[in-house]
């Protein structure tokens, strides 16, 4: 029956592979093609203009600052999300201390887990509406309302939050972290529970404190999961389109005020849809593709460690 193996495997693979090629690979290739044209995005008419779009792109200050904002997100988002998720997961699974000994989470861990996961079930659209209410610029906003009531800010000049050039991007980052922590908490919890309890018990008997248990045992044993989380979050940081485009001010896909929260995706969309510079936007798409690809490869390489067997 051996000779029947390959047709059997191919039979299963052919449909997904064809779908993948047609729906994923082919559009990517097309984007490369379109990026060499002056396509307007409103019809199939276009002229080949070589690398002119790319030359223009590297002299475009708005795009350069958008790349900068994405890189800032790339630094902040994975670090903050992973640290918070790890801390909470540790507290919920092994951080508790009880009189009888043994390994367990803090009191009410099961309840907290549900609460933390809650943001994950909300769609991005709901998140956006919800947090626009939180960040609203008059006293009707949750934050401004509280701050004004507490007398911490002047009711005549409330904080601008998303509309403030220095705060806007951070406000969005806050929402991204808030919505992401729950998922990674559950991911890390699952990984922690697969660590044999006797390792922790041995550490406890040796008198290890919480911090020591965390750094000497939990972190090394979770390394692979953290690495996965890192790559996912890096890709999320390169995107962030839905929240930035709906929450921040600015004509057509946000990015304001005055490009202060501009990211690559919002600038791409504005050029693609609004300004009719689809060829130029495709060139941005290609640049984003390569940046994301390089970052994924680099972060996988840099974080590579020897696997610990247990």
């Amino acid at each position, binding site marked *: 029956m051996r000779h029947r193996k390959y047709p059997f495997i191919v039979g299963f693979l052919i449909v997904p592979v064809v779908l993948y090629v*047609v*729906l994923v690979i*082919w*559009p990517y*290739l*097309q984007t490369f*093609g*379109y990026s060499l*044209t002056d*396509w*307007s*995005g*409103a*019809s*199939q*008419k*276009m002229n*080949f203009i070589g690398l002119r779009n790319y030359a223009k792109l590297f002299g475009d200050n708005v795009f350069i600052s958008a790349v900068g904002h994405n890189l800032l997100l790339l630094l902040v988002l994975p670090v903050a999300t992973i640290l918070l998720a790890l801390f909470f997961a540790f507290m919920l699974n092994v951080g508790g201390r009880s009189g009888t000994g043994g390994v367990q989470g803090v009191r009410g861990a099961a309840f907290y887990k549900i609460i933390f996961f809650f943001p994950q079930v909300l769609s*991005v*659209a709901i998140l*956006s509406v919800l947090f626009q209410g939180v960040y*609203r*610029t*008059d*006293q*009707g*906003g949750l934050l*401004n309302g509280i701050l004004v009531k507490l007398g911490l800010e002047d*009711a*005549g*000049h*409330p904080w*601008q*939050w*998303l*509309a*403030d*050039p220095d705060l806007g991007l951070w406000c969005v980052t806050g929402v991204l972290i808030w919505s992401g922590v729950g998922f990674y908490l559950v991911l890390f919890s699952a990984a922690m529970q697969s660590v044999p309890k006797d390792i922790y018990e041995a550490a406890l008997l040796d008198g290890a404190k919480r911090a020591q248990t965390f750094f000497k045992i939990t972190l090394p044993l979770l390394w692979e999961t953290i690495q996965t989380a890192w790559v996912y979050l890096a890709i999320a940081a390169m*995107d962030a*389109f*839905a929240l930035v*485009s*709906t929450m921040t*001010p*600015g*004509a*057509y*896909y946000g990015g*304001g*005020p*005055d*490009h202060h929260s501009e990211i690559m*995706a919002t600038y791409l*969309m*504005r050029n*693609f*849809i*609004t*300004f*009719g510079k689809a060829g130029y936007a495709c060139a941005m798409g290609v640049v984003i593709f390569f940046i994301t690809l390089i970052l994924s490869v680099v972060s996988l390489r840099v974080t590579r460690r020897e696997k610990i067997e247990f």
Partner: protein
Amino acid sequence: MGSATEYNRRDIFKRAAAVTVLAAGSGSLLAACAGGTGSSSDNNSAAPGTGGNAANPFGVKAGDPLDVVIFKGGYGDDYAKSFEDMYKKTYAGANISHLGTQDISPKLQPRFNAGNPPDVIDDSGAQQLKIDVLAGADQLTDLTKLLDAPYLDDPSKKIRDVLLPGTIEQGTIGGKMVSLNYVYTVFGLWYSAKLFKDKGWAVPKTWDEFITLCGTIKAAGIAPFAHQGKYPYYANYVILDLIAKQGGLDLVKKIDACDATAWDDPAVLAGVTAFYKIMDGDFLLPGTNGMTHTESQTAWCQGKAAFIPSGSWLENEMIKVTPADFDMAFLPIPSLSGDKLPATAVRAGAGEPFIVPSKAKNQAGGLEFLRMMLTKEGSGKFAAAANSLTVLKDGIGADVVLKPGTKSSSVAVTAAGSNTFNFSYPDLQTAFDTELQNATNELVNKRIGPKDWVARGKAATSKKV
């Protein structure tokens, strides 16, 4: 207008995939680049003008389906359904598909690319397909044949004879009329006549009086001025109108043409400096610089602010939250000393562009639909359903009862007479407009001053299409 429609980046990949599937049929990437899928051009066979007669100038085939897409914004989309009923009365066999949406671009861009656009589109709102882009890509039908077609209510006249002045110009790019701007929109400041009466405030005629009144209003504990901060183009209605009145119609033309020298005209600095007095006097509704149009207009309806800038769609847009005795009223932008245009002059003109794509399957039906909109019956139905005026001359019969805001704006239009002006750059110079909006947002936040605003406006002219 200006709604923050939810949007997902995945949509664009879905669209890319859709384009791909279509292009895949043509064999290679180059073939796709070279233009179209071949199948779309076959649909063009029913070119209008063939087989037309006086009663049916475009040669509509009664059984052809009609595909209508309407921007469901400040005017809603109920009015379009009554137009569709009118169309069905004449062409009973026509199957009409109606889509009312705020997502014009996301829904229609892939259809344009695939060569399968609808037959009539009300192309408006924050997600509108830009007319300059569509015209550049040869996607729009030249509406000259509509202008030369007989007027349905009186076949001795042509459509071009019954349109309000400026309508044709507003939709003309490169000598071709590509969009019928159907709604006669008036732009300016709005206030509650009841509030002003209760407080004994006189409506200001000059900008100095306006600024003085702002001080009085502030002292009474109400914010004098609100604007739709997240969408700075509303504030531009005030700034650019001050500039237009000060500098005159030639300056309006130069600004529309993205002529950099327009920005050296002292009228530009005078206008924006006058506007800046609002910031100097701290007359803004707290938080208004970051609020959406809905948030700020609602606050205004609740009496938290006295004035707000907007177009005449405002009354219909806010109809659900406006108190019954609000008595909405319109005020043209007050005048500055030395103005070239009189105090009664207003920014007014044709808005809400309706287009017939050049690749529409039922192009004749689309043109006929527009012709039916331009009847007394159509115009009256629009006025009743959307509380706004249309570009049809004397388009409203005595039987149509106007709401106070619409009535007051039509009084202002009558008072202005021939002294109306309008800017076309928001429709036809999108990249320039976006830059100018960014500059205005910086200005209202006092991060830049009037001189910097002028400099940024001048620099933005380099974005000319």
